[in-house]
């Protein structure tokens, strides 16, 4: 089981000021949100804008009852991302990535290298198709439970499990192609 980050903020405790709760939650989870935004956009400037958009939306929706502020903030950020990139998500390169680069689940994969640089892991994660990238990141990096990932991305639990399996397989394939001598034997981008 993946260790889960502590929930430093809970909306279940009574609060007289929802605005201060959102503020507290955003500041506590700002690093997490920025990382997720960076994984989604693959660009620091866009990630910066996306987090700010997320905060604005969170402030607008601050009066609703939120049981899990961290998951709610991630969901808000993902909504902002989808809204801004809806056209790119629905058509174009992502579909090609899915059909063109997806490996057969049962295909042989080279063993993982003994050592992996953070930059290579980042490049491998960011080369995943966005649906797989979001699931792998939320589950493996941020430690969300599958049902929380399903809530954030608003898709069925089975779909999340399936995407996570495919995402890990793709990630494994990309990293196993990494040459520890310093040359990539597989174009990660």
């Amino acid at each position, binding site marked *: 089981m*993946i260790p889960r980050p502590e929930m430093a903020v809970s909306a279940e405790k009574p609060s007289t000021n929802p605005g201060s709760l959102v503020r507290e939650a955003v500041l506590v989870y700002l*690093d997490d949100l920025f990382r997720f935004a960076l994984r989604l956009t693959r660009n620091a400037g866009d990630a910066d804008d996306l987090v700010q958009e997320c905060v604005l939306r969170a402030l607008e929706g601050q009066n609703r009852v939120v049981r899990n502020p961290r998951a709610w903030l991630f969901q808000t950020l993902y909504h902002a991302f989808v809204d801004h990139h809806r056209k790119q998500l629905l058509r174009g390169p992502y579909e090609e990535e899915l059909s063109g680069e997806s490996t057969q689940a049962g*295909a042989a994969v080279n063993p*993982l290298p003994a050592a992996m640089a953070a930059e290579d892991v980042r490049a491998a994660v960011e080369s995943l198709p966005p649906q797989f990238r979001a699931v792998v990141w939320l589950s493996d990096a941020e430690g969300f*439970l599958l049902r929380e990932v399903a809530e954030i991305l608003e898709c069925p639990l089975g779909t999340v499990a399936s995407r996570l399996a495919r995402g890990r397989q793709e990630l494994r394939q990309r990293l196993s192609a990494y040459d520890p001598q310093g040359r990539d034997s597989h174009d990660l981008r």
Partner: protein
Amino acid sequence: MTCDKCRAQLILSEERGPVPAAAQEHLGQCHACQEFVQDGERLRKEVRLLAETEQAPRELREKIQAMFEDRAVSRKRQWLVWAGAAAALVLLVLGVYGWYYTRRSPTPDRLAREFITDYQSYLPGKAEIVSNSPRDIEQWFQGRVDFPVRVPALPAAAPVEARVCEIGNRKAALVHYRRESDQALISFFVAIEPPAFDQARKSVRVSTSYEGVNAALWCHRGLVFSLVGAIDEASLNQMAQAVRQQSP
């Protein structure tokens, strides 16, 4: 079972209980899936390590702080605007209510003043009935006002004419008398008693004077009566007393 399904089942079982038998059977026979499981924990660890190395830029944190502060200031301003608007609305409502209350609920003094004003604006020829017969005048008022009008006998004065007038948005019966000694005009008003008089639950009897015109006003059985004339106060009050004594 396919490798994809088996791996999805394995992932689900990490949180939802035992691995289904079919997935276990596939795992026992599939080398690729066994490697997938073996490499899984290492992959997760590498991804977590990557996450630990990344932080939000300081500039972004400052921007977010500034957003919260701007928002707090604008919310405070917005609150002040709303509070000001609400206070203005309350004042407006109170003002309208006060005006309405004043208009609808005249005080005895104010009503007596209105009778005096009507007296002062007397013009010959405005009368609707000219008669010195109390009975004729009483009959003439029937159906023209919503209350019975009794024309009383005034000491040393006789009725000469009558009409319906409006006093404080109410219909009032007005009978004019002439005093025999000097032909001074005396007005006798009858109208429905304003609700505020009744709510005050105390007897209303007012003597007032304005620009040389005296008025006596009193209430009896839901009606308000007033005698108005440019005569001395004592004579007017004597007449008023006489009228009150004739009341049933």
